């Protein structure tokens, strides 16, 4: 180790670059993520610049990020490290081009105040400000009154925030503000804690003021935290300050550069919204299918059980700040649910889970279903599993999903999940956070349900609206998708291709319609597909399927109302429905009888039902139907 001049970290990309191998940028990105020392990161940055010079650049994004770096220090070579981290942040696809403005040494105050400065000429999207540490020491004496010391600290903080405000107002740029590292120097001993005049305590007060008073356009680069985590003794290098006015030690520059890149990435992408977790050996120890609900390890009776419980508590705390929790497990669903319902030491309950996928299908497929149900992109999901094979499958078949591989030790789980930094909130008022709120509608609906004992009152309170429409060309892909994917609420499970759906639209002996539903919490989209065929005076329901998200909402009643209305327009005397049992559609076994149909025959396991009383009044429901199928056609 000690004889290595440059650590191994630059070797592989160097080789790939020499061979002009297209994996160079992926490798560069991966190594940048693990590089921890200045030499490592500088070597990678040199390779990146060299590749560009050789014309081996990758396609770069259309919108360059314009970043200004200003401060009370020499900002070379920090600017280079920041640029490198930003440009390599994306492993694949287009790189983020960065255009930099590097402020002059200790000139940030005038660069901000002077309206004609280079800063404003440059027109930055973001400004990183590293204020001078020399401006953040108490100018009086250690034994001055506490109120005088604190007043000066607050002044420094408010002046700095005012500078940021000016810069923001003039550029509309996001401001990334570095707060102050705490000194590692021994003097004046533990007395530092007893006076606000020591640099230690003084900077703590300034940092507190900055953090608690900063408006939302300021992202804090928490150097105090970073240097404490890194070790304050190693974060500062006096020689580097005297020689070239460096703010931090060479290796600590790396930490700050990575933090700035992380903050900038967060400004553009927003945080993740869903954490999808495995169950066995992730939420509890053991395998519930084998060990039974009494045999799993969870709770305070063993150290391992405590560790799993702590992990559940952490997940619960994520849900409390708006992260949605989903289950994605290879399991028998009935068994998988049991611990949530029955185990007294479980922290998480079914009400904490917005989507529960426990089956034997590939997890990548289940994650796709979770994304569909929540109406979110795959890239908003973070998948957490202890099984490397499952993580690999998701990486390959659902590459947009971020994955966290848990190790063998549950006491490490919280740290491993936090390491990815997927769920760090930016501000409580930001657009990202509002967006998260919007996806909590489902759980809001559940809360409303538990708060109202009367189902009818609950349904009325939802203020549901439905739009019924004959098949429209634009809906065909979604219709075909539902026809080919719906298994549970699907009476005949009859599959049709897009072409066959179009054929139904053309054929006048068919009547096909869809239902869209929305309520006061949001829009469910297209949730039901019905295809009927008219045969003389009989109208046969060939397909009736619905999204399970709208069960118990009286959509069934409105579907039958619509079918009866359509039957009347074609002078049909009988409506015939069919239940074709499959292993998955047990939930609709009793649907037709519930809708007033009578069983007339059984045919090869299929049950045929008929409704002949077509004069009785239509069913009442809490849904306001705003449009009906074939309206234009029939009114014409």
């Amino acid at each position: 180790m000690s004889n290595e001049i440059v650590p191994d970290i630059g070797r592989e990309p160097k080789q790939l670059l020499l061979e002009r191998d297209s994996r160079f940028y992926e490798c560069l990105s991966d190594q940048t993520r693990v590089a921890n020392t200045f030499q490592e990161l500088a070597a990678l940055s040199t390779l990146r610049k060299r590749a560009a010079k050789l014309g081996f650049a990758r396609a770069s994004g259309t919108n360059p990020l314009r970043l200004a770096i200003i401060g009370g220090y020499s900002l070379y070579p920090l600017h280079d490290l920041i640029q490198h981290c930003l440009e390599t942040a994306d492993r694949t696809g287009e790189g983020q081009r960065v255009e930099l403005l590097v402020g002059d040494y200790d000139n940030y105050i005038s660069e901000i105040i002077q309206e004609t400065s280079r800063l404003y000429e440059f027109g930055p999207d973001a400004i990183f400000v590293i204020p001078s540490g020399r401006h953040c020491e108490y100018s009086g004496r250690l034994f001055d009154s506490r109120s005088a010391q604190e007043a000066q600290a607050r002044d420094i903080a408010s002046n700095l925030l005012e500078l940021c405000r000016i810069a923001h107002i003039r550029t509309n740029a996001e401001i990334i503000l570095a707060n102050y590292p705490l000194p590692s120097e021994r003097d004046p001993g533990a007395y530092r804690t007893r006076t606000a005049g020591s640099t230690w305590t003084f900077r703590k007060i300034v940092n507190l003021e900055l953090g608690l008073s900063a408006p939302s356009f300021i992202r804090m680069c928490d150097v105090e935290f970073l240097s404490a985590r890194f070790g304050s003794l190693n974060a500062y290098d006096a020689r580097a300050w005297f020689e070239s006015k460096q703010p931090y030690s060479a290796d600590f520059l790396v930490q700050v550069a990575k933090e700035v890149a992380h903050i900038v990435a967060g400004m553009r992408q927003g945080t993740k919204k869903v954490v999808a977790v495995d169950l066995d050996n992730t939420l509890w120890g053991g395998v519930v299918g084998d060990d039974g609900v009494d045999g799993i390890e969870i709770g305070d009776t063993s150290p391992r059980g405590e560790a799993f419980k702590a992990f559940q508590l952490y997940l619960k705390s994520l849900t409390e700040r708006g992260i949605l929790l989903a289950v994605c497990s290879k399991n028998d669903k009935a068994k998988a649910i049991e611990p949530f319902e029955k185990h007294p030491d479980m922290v998480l309950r079914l009400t904490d889970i917005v989507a529960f996928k426990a089956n034997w299908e590939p997890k990548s497929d289940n994650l796709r279903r979770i994304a569909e149900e929540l109406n979110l992109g795959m890239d908003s999901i973070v998948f957490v599993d202890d099984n490397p094979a499952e993580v690999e499958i998701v990486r390959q078949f659902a590459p947009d999903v971020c994955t966290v591989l848990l190790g063998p030790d549950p006491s490490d789980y919280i740290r491993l999940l936090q390491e990815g930094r997927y769920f760090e909130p930016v501000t409580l008022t930001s657009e990202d956070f509002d967006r998260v709120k919007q996806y909590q509608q489902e759980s809001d609906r559940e809360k409303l349900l538990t708060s109202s004992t009367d189902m009818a009152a609950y349904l009325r309170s939802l203020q549901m609206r439905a739009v019924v429409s004959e098949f429209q060309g634009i809906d065909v892909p979604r219709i075909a998708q539902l026809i080919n994917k719906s298994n549970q609420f699907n009476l005949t499970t009859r599959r049709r291709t897009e072409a066959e759906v179009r054929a139904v639209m053309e054929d006048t002996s068919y009547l096909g319609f869809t239902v869209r539903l929305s309520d006061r919490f949001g829009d469910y989209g297209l949730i039901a597909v019905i295809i009927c065929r008219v045969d003389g005076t009989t109208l046969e329901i060939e397909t009736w399927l619905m999204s399970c998200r709208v069960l118990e909402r009286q959509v069934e009643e409105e579907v039958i109302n619509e079918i009866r209305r359509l039957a009347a327009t074609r002078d049909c005397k009988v409506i015939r429905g069919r239940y074709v049992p499959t292993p998955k559609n047990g939930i609709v076994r009793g649907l037709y009888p519930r809708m007033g149909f009578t069983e007339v025959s059984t045919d090869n396991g299929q049950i045929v039902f008929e409704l002949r009383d077509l004069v009785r009044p239509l069913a009442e429901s809490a849904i306001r139907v705003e449009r009906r199928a074939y309206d234009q056609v029939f009114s014409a």
Partner: protein
Amino acid sequence: MTRFSVLDRLQPVFDEVLLDPVTVSSELSAKDVPEWDSLTNISLMLAVEKHFGVRFNVGEVEATKNLGDLADLILRKLSK
């Protein structure tokens, strides 16, 4: 150890840190090498310190005019 052998041992350090091949000589300095910028200089000096097991005092490196001076500085450190 001589100035020449120190320069000899500096060659692999420069080979590792710089991408373009550079022949180390006592007259060589940053202005002769395009990629020897401020970033590379910090990397080079950190690598030199590590490679020879020495630590330069504040201002010492800046006072060297070329690699010959740097080799002399390293020699002084090593002889202490």
